[in-house]
């Protein structure tokens, strides 16, 4: 029996909390030349979840990657979460994952080698669940460890779902609760109850597969997944790409149990503040939205849910469909799409 190794002991920020601030990133990226090609259906311009390239009338490739430092103690679970998170970008574009490469940074001097194996096994398990194939990978000696995938998926060009497809009048559906960042930081500070932390881990491991399939079935055109920039950050990018504004009913946003308490006790990760700074003036909160909720909608999510904009006539049906096909899912309508207003996000 191998000795237990606590991956959380290696890091300060884990999971998608380790993203660079969105504002800084756009500053650098705008200096770079933008690839232009008629077959490039989604480029970096709209800050979407993945790049999409049409190879023929029937097929477009979705190409994406995501990796990060440990989000939890157990190596196998870390592998599962990192893989679910990387695969999610393909689902967010309406596609099906096809091939994946392991990306690993790992120091054999600092961490026992069996941990390496466990992480890969966890990742492999999720890729298998997604019916995709791991075809190789790359490892670099580095500490703290980082793991993730580069993923290629496919989508019919007509079935492509982007973050630029939300239209005024659409309802907004969120398919997973928010608060993973809160509960993980609470775990590190001894403020998360074990059962709440377990629920967060369970949710992070879940694939967005069923929710994405349901979205395709109901003709959803605008979708993104909620990760490091938090609900507010990703909603902002989606509304901006779609040239609309979103109105979100904060009271309807599903919260992981215990996440509010962690923030109430004052344990708010730095990523939350970075995200708040990023959304800045583009977001308006009514007075009735309290401080903790305002921070929670900026909480960095790891392997978060899908945010989709759907025709109002189909919204209730779609929510039912998602929750039926995935009994663990807690999809709810959290708001609606408005014509572009002076601000991009309005939280009630």
């Amino acid at each position, binding site marked *: 029996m191998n000795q237990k190794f606590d991956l959380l002991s290696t890091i300060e920020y884990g999971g998608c909390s380790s993203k660079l601030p969105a504002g800084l990133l756009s500053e650098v990226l705008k200096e770079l030349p933008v690839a232009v090609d008629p077959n490039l259906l989604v480029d970096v311009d709209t800050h979407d979840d993945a790049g999409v390239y049409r190879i023929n009338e029937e097929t477009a490739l979705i190409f994406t990657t995501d990796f990060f430092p440990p989000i939890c103690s157990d190596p196998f679970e870390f592998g599962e979460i990192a893989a679910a998170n990387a695969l999610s970008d393909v689902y967010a574009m309406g596609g099906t994952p096809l091939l994946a490469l392991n990306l690993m940074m790992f120091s054999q001097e600092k961490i026992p080698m069996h941990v390496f194996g466990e992480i890969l096994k966890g990742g492999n398990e999720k890729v298998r669940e997604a019916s995709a194939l791991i075809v190789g990978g790359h490892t670099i000696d580095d500490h703290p460890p980082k793991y993730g995938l580069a993923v290629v998926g496919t989508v019919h060009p007509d079935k492509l779902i982007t973050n630029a497809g939300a239209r005024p009048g659409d309802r907004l559906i969120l398919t997973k609760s928010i608060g993973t960042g809160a509960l993980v930081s609470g775990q590190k500070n001894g403020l998360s109850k074990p059962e709440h932390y377990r629920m967060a881990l369970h949710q992070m491991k879940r694939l967005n597969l069923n929710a994405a399939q349901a979205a395709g079935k109901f003709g959803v055109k605008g979708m993104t997944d909620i990760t490091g920039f938090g609900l507010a950050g990703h909603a902002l990018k989606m509304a901006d790409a779609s040239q609309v504004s979103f109105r979100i009913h904060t009271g309807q946003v599903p919260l992981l149990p215990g996440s509010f308490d962690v923030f109430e006790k004052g344990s708010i990760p730095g990523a939350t503040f970075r995200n708040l700074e990023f959304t800045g003036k583009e977001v*308006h909160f*009514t007075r009735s939205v309290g401080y903790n909720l305002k921070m929670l909608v900026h909480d960095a999510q790891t392997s978060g849910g899908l945010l989709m904009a759907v025709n109002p006539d189909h919204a209730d049906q779609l929510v039912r469909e998602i929750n039926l096909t995935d009994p663990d899912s807690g999809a709810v309508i959290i708001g609606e799409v*408005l*014509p572009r*207003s002076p601000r991009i996000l*309005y939280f009630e």
Partner: protein
Amino acid sequence: MKIIDTNGFKCPQPLIMLKEGLQEMEKGENVTIYTDNESSLKNLVTYLRDQGVEPEVSSNEKVHAIVTRRPEANLIDTDPAAYCETGIVVNNYVVCIKSELMGEGDPELGKVLMETFMDNLKLQEQLPTHVVLYNSGVKLAMKQSSVCSSLSELEELGTRVMLCGSCIDHYGLQYDIGVGMISDMVVITETMAIAGHVIYP
């Protein structure tokens, strides 16, 4: 003297704590209740008055202290949560602006009155939850409007400024909006229907 400290709790928790506290006390015994929440203060005072005692309130910047005594009579059994509802109604109002001018008569005067009203609105201790602008009222939210800055200040203070989308389309103002959230009549009707009261200046 008994002390009930409800600091940090939100309605109906302070009322439940007060109710439980009173039940444990001797009739006529003195009690001080602390709260750091405006609405809870109002609700606690209303509850105590309903129980037949007159509370005395003293406040510093953060905390209110309510001094009173356990009623001589038996406590009237009521649902604490019901007092929270009252709190919301008392605190919540919506301002509806149905025209770019305030009042009927000389348009010049109407414009000045509207500017003065907006200047004063943002100074109110109790700010409106929403300012709803419709018909020619939406023109006030345009960048070039003389009250646009007052509306922006209200928005900064957490008031939701709502604009009638069809009205903006009707007047062809889509590209001039300086402040506010474009809404439809469904949202506007809902907002007015749940408001504690609605002010039409």
